[in-house]
């Protein structure tokens, strides 16, 4: 089969998978589309069985790692960590909008760094909204901040974003070295978000204090905090002792899940649901589809536009192209496409690509142009019309955050972090 045809088929498989993931038809789960498309590409010879097995085998440890992190986040939810954070923010803010925003910055960044982007969006955002409205403070700055920080603060650790996890082994870096190199870029991205958001929402933040929070006895989620602390310490210690972080994550997931099963605060069914098997399959299928597209000419095309080397202009170019691609096809396929090519220039280039795909999604509403177009085409429900504010905020933060974070990455590499 000619390469142009196999490339077209691979891209059609990718488009069908992304379309199913965005449109979410009830009768056709996206995981089924992803796996069927991957199997179809193997069947027509667009990708060999061996290559598909290699791509899936390469992803398997990452998917195990992801499963452990999903259980860890679910355990924290069960232990009341997110409600406790809401109470802490309410009390700490003393009803002042700017203080609340500062606390939301600290909490959203910390949750993203330690538990990853998903829990910040799915579990923390409703808590932030409820906290602000309970204090009678306009929730817009806090909700925008949470949505933005779920992306921009997800640079720091290999576990902070699935994109990081997908390329962690490609970088060849240890857990602590990854964190050391990404510390300055993360701080730079958060600083840009603070500078822009506080200006953008000056009217809301300048208003007089809202209600004071009633000081009920705070619930301390001891199990969640202990397990999270021990897991983080384990990641750092394991890095020095040469223990793979996936085992540390598995130990943390076990430590928070088994007590719940023993005390019957969670059933086996709850644990399976928390593992999100369809999501794990979706990632696996996506990996094979992207491998097929890359092998059949997409990699060559990307190699032509992606700068080589790790000079500052090259890193800025890699970050910008990665951000653009993340906005076109969503950040998961984007990093799967770019990482193997960037890896040829060394870990700094892969980290620059991560800066692009992690910070970039704040540029367009819902993180992806494809998402936006599909939502508009398929479900033009009236709630999606006020895109102007989010897009203006994205345009104000993303280029500055990309530039600042990449500059910090380059500086970190130069000073030998």
């Amino acid at each position, binding site marked *: 089969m000619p390469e142009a045809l196999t490339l077209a088929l691979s891209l059609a498989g990718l488009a069908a998978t992304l379309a199913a993931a*965005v449109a979410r038809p009830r009768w056709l789960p996206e995981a089924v589309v992803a796996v069927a498309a991957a199997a179809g590409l193997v069947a027509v010879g667009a990708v060999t069985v061996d290559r598909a097995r290699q791509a899936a085998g390469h992803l398997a440890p990452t998917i195990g790692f992801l499963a452990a992190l999903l259980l860890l986040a679910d355990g924290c939810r069960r232990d009341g960590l997110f409600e406790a954070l809401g109470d802490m923010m309410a009390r700490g803010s003393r009803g002042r909008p700017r203080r609340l925003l500062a606390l939301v910055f600290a909490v959203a960044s910390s949750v993203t760094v330690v538990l990853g982007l998903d829990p910040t969006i799915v579990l923390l*955002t409703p808590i932030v*909204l*409820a906290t602000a409205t309970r204090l009678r403070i*306009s929730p817009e700055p806090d909700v925008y901040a949470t*949505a933005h920080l779920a992306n921009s603060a997800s640079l720091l650790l290999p576990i902070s974003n699935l994109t990081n996890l997908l390329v962690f082994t490609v970088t060849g870096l240890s857990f602590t070295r990854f964190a050391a190199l990404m510390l300055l870029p993360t701080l730079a991205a958060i600083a840009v978000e603070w500078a822009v958001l506080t200006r953008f929402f000056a*009217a809301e933040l300048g*208003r007089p204090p809202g209600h004071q929070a009633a000081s009920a006895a705070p619930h301390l989620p001891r199990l969640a905090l202990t397990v999270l602390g021990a897991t983080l310490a384990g990641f750092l210690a394991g890095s020095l002792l040469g223990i793979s972080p996936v085992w540390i994550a598995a130990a943390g997931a076990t430590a928070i899940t088994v007590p719940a099963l023993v005390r019957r605060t969670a059933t086996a069914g709850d644990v399976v649901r928390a593992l999100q098997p369809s999501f794990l399959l979706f990632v696996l299928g996506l990996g094979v589809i992207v491998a097929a597209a890359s092998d059949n000419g997409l990699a060559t095309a990307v190699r032509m536009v992606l700068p080589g080397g790790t000079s500052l202009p090259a890193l800025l170019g890699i970050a910008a192209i990665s951000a653009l691609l993340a906005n076109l096809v969503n950040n998961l396929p984007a990093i799967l496409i770019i990482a193997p090519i960037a890896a040829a220039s060394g870990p700094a280039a892969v980290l620059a690509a991560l800066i692009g795909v992690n910070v970039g999604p704040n540029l367009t509403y819902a993180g992806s142009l494809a*998402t936006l177009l599909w939502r508009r085409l398929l479900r033009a429900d009236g709630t999606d019309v006020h895109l102007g504010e989010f897009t203006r905020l994205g345009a104000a933060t993303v280029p500055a955050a990309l530039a600042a974070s990449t500059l910090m990455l380059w500086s970190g590499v130069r000073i030998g972090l």
Partner: protein
Amino acid sequence: MRALVWIVAETWQATVAGAATFLPAGADVTLLHVTASDAQTVARGARDALLGRPHRPAANSLDAISEQSARQLLADAQAALGREAVLDARCGRIEHEVIAAAGTADLILFARDKDHTHPGPRSLGPTARYVLDHAPRAVLLVWPDAPSA
């Protein structure tokens, strides 16, 4: 006389105090609150961008959180006002909803929404400025920190 009192979470007490002081006893009062749809739209959009994750109904839906807090705010405002009032809770683009609700009202009463420490044009943010500029009838503007009652 029909008066529309636009209630905003941070400044509701000053607005209600203004209404109690300045509105005549026989006025038909409507207390209006508008929940901006932006926060929910952003939260939902961010969730939709997480491709491939199963969609389970959130334990506390975003709309329910906002609706409940709006109802509670209007109830508190009416209790503080201490007189009959129509309660109007809306959702959407705030400034457009306020002007739409103003309809045939003779007066709109609301609070300045930006720099509340110094008199001047900076005391009005874009939302209050829009309502002031587009108000079909009379406007009564109160300072958020100086309850007049």
